[in-house]
């Protein structure tokens, strides 16, 4: 458990300035989301319909995937199926090598991050260029994204300037976002023009039409798919929606929830390749069918990857995306990661205050805090929680179950607490007391105060 969320978060908050800066930066996006959603008078109706569409889709995923396959094939798209990350990576690699492609431009795809496609291809001699600016920044820095919408949100502009000075030959000391973005534009233009293939994620795949929709603000997906002769789109099985008109619902929700924009700058609908080019769609399960079978967490598959839950999460904002140790951080990642691999991500369901703010902002109304609680119970049941925590919880449950014992424990604490020396109270395992003062103990219990008040009232009436 040494590499869990608490330990990684402790490293992040050790830099107090950065932790506060990160908190504010992320909160600002949450506020933009609030303004944008409040301006839409049918927002709650929209969320309800979106949740309903996703619920419906999950009950008929296989049917809709087959319908999508039929219709996309009719448009000249070649469909591939991958059970897991290894199969996905092998399919993409074969598509590239069969055509002699050595340079691949990628637009943002959390699925390929999940499958660790980049290192797989790089180890086999293919140059992979992430073309979303934030993704390119973290790629150059040799680190994973820390946010699903803003991959480099943890980086200060001065650090990005230093990175670009090394890799893009920008001026020493330059940190103006406009200047750095312009440098990246020229750098990436060259990459787009010389690429042999473009890879994109998929925001929505429409069963009824066999089309896929990719949303970006930068236009990098459009650049990457309109120049090279090969377009590979990778999607999880849950990206399917039944009808094209459902896009009206999701496109109204997605960007407003993500960044507070009314819609992304580019929402591109692909139905087949350009003349003379090829288009392939890789449909990936990688554990999703298992999540579908688990009632308590299956609605996590409704996620449209807007990032609103992380922007609002008090734990994410203060601990940073990297502390989660998973491709998708924040509340939704804290469900998805342990769902896939409970032993490696046992601390994540506890990286939450269960305040429910994530569920409040979720555009598809995933009950994230309930899911996190369910996963905590599962972790405890499977003994994936540290023994100290389990012991304390068992002890607490025991005390709470016996009212006499509970009253005695309270009485004892109220008397012992004020007289114990500090060094006994603030011992190493008093985690609460590390950054805080313990509360001042009241003289009486709530029960005693309540009874006294009732006696007084009765006396006043009589």
């Amino acid at each position, binding site marked *: 458990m040494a590499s869990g969320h608490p330990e990684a978060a402790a490293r992040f908050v050790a830099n107090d300035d950065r932790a506060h800066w990160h908190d504010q930066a992320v909160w600002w996006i949450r506020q933009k989301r609030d303004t944008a959603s409040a301006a839409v008078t049918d927002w709650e109706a929209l969320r309800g319909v979106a949740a309903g569409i996703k619920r419906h889709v999950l009950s008929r995923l296989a049917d809709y995937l087959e319908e999508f396959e039929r219709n996309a094939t009719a448009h000249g798209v070649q469909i591939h199926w991958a059970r897991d990350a290894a199969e996905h990576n092998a399919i993409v690699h074969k598509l590239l090598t069969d055509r002699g492609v050595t340079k691949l431009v990628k637009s943002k795809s959390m699925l390929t991050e999940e499958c660790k496609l980049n290192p797989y291809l790089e180890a086999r001699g293919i140059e992979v260029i992430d073309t979303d600016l934030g993704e390119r920044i973290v790629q150059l820095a040799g680190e994973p994204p820390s946010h699903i919408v803003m991959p480099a949100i943890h980086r200060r502009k001065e650090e990005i300037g230093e990175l670009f000075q090394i890799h893009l030959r920008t001026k020493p000391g330059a940190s103006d976002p406009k200047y750095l973005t312009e440098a*990246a534009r020229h750098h990436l233009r060259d990459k787009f023009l010389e690429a042999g293939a473009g890879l994109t994620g998929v925001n929505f795949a429409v069963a009824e039409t066999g089309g896929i929709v990719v949303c970006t603000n930068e236009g*990098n997906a459009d650049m990457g798919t309109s120049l090279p002769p090969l377009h590979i789109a990778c999607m999880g099985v849950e990206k399917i929606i039944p009808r094209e*008109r459902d896009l*009206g619902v999701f496109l109204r929700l997605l960007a407003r929830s993500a960044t507070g924009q*009314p*819609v992304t*700058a580019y929402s591109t609908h692909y139905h087949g390749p*350009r003349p003379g080019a090829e288009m392939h769609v890789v449909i990936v399960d990688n554990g999703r*069918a298992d999540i579908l*079978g688990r009632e308590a967490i299956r609605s996590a598959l409704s996620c449209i990857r807007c990032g609103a839950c992380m922007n609002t999460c008090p734990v994410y904002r203060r601990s940073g995306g990297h502390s989660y140790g998973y491709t998708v951080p924040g509340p939704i990642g804290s469900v998805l990661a342990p769902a896939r691999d409970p032993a490696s991500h046992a601390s994540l369901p506890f990286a939450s205050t269960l305040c429910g703010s994530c569920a409040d902002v979720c555009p598809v109304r995933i009950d994230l805090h309930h899911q996190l609680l369910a996963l905590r119970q599962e972790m405890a049941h499977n003994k994936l929680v540290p023994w100290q925590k389990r012991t304390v919880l068992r002890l607490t449950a025991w005390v709470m179950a016996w009212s006499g014992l509970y009253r005695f424990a309270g009485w004892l604490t109220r008397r012992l607490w004020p007289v114990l020396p500090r060094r006994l109270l603030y011992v190493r395992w008093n985690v609460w007391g590390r950054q805080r003062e313990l509360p001042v103990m009241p003289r009486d219990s709530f029960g005693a105060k309540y009874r006294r008040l009732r006696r007084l009232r009765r006396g006043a009436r009589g």
Partner: protein
Amino acid sequence: MASTRSSRDDILAALRRNAPEASAAPGLDGLGVVFADPFAELARSMVAVGGAYVRVADIAAAHAAVAALPQAGSAKKIASLVPGVGQPTIDLTAIDDPHALADLDLAVLPGELAVAENAAVWVDGKSLPHRAVFVITDHLVLVVHARDVVSHMHQAYERLAGRSRGHGLFISGPSKTADIEQVLVVGAQGARTCALVIVG
């Protein structure tokens, strides 16, 4: 492809096995906010997404409005797919390889409809000899007829329902990013400016 065939069957079987009980798809009736003055809302949205908005009476006035744009004045390589608007210097249909468009300064393209709530303009791929045009150009002008302005996205998809499906997209303003310290920078990988001209 034997192995991928069985992957397909495995995945579909697992999704069927684990599917929750049936839940009906909700209707979309009543969604969307209809604006009393969609043009005013469209203008407001266009400016909010970093673009420019102008409404003119006819094609001749659209041509004049485009000529008056500062980005048009300095443009050397110009393409136009809207007859009578802009002064094209190249013929897109005569170009074989989209890489030749890397130095395109200005593109004037027809939009099939414009959505007031978010300034999204539908550009149909069938009208473009090359998909790259709208994103590779430095500056973009979209021309939409006034009768093709709708209030919201649900109306937009109703209008698009009857088309034959190929490549197409909604463009809302210029290319942009806020990936460096959340500072909005207009002109990321795609068009640096985007002007919407409403005719009629």
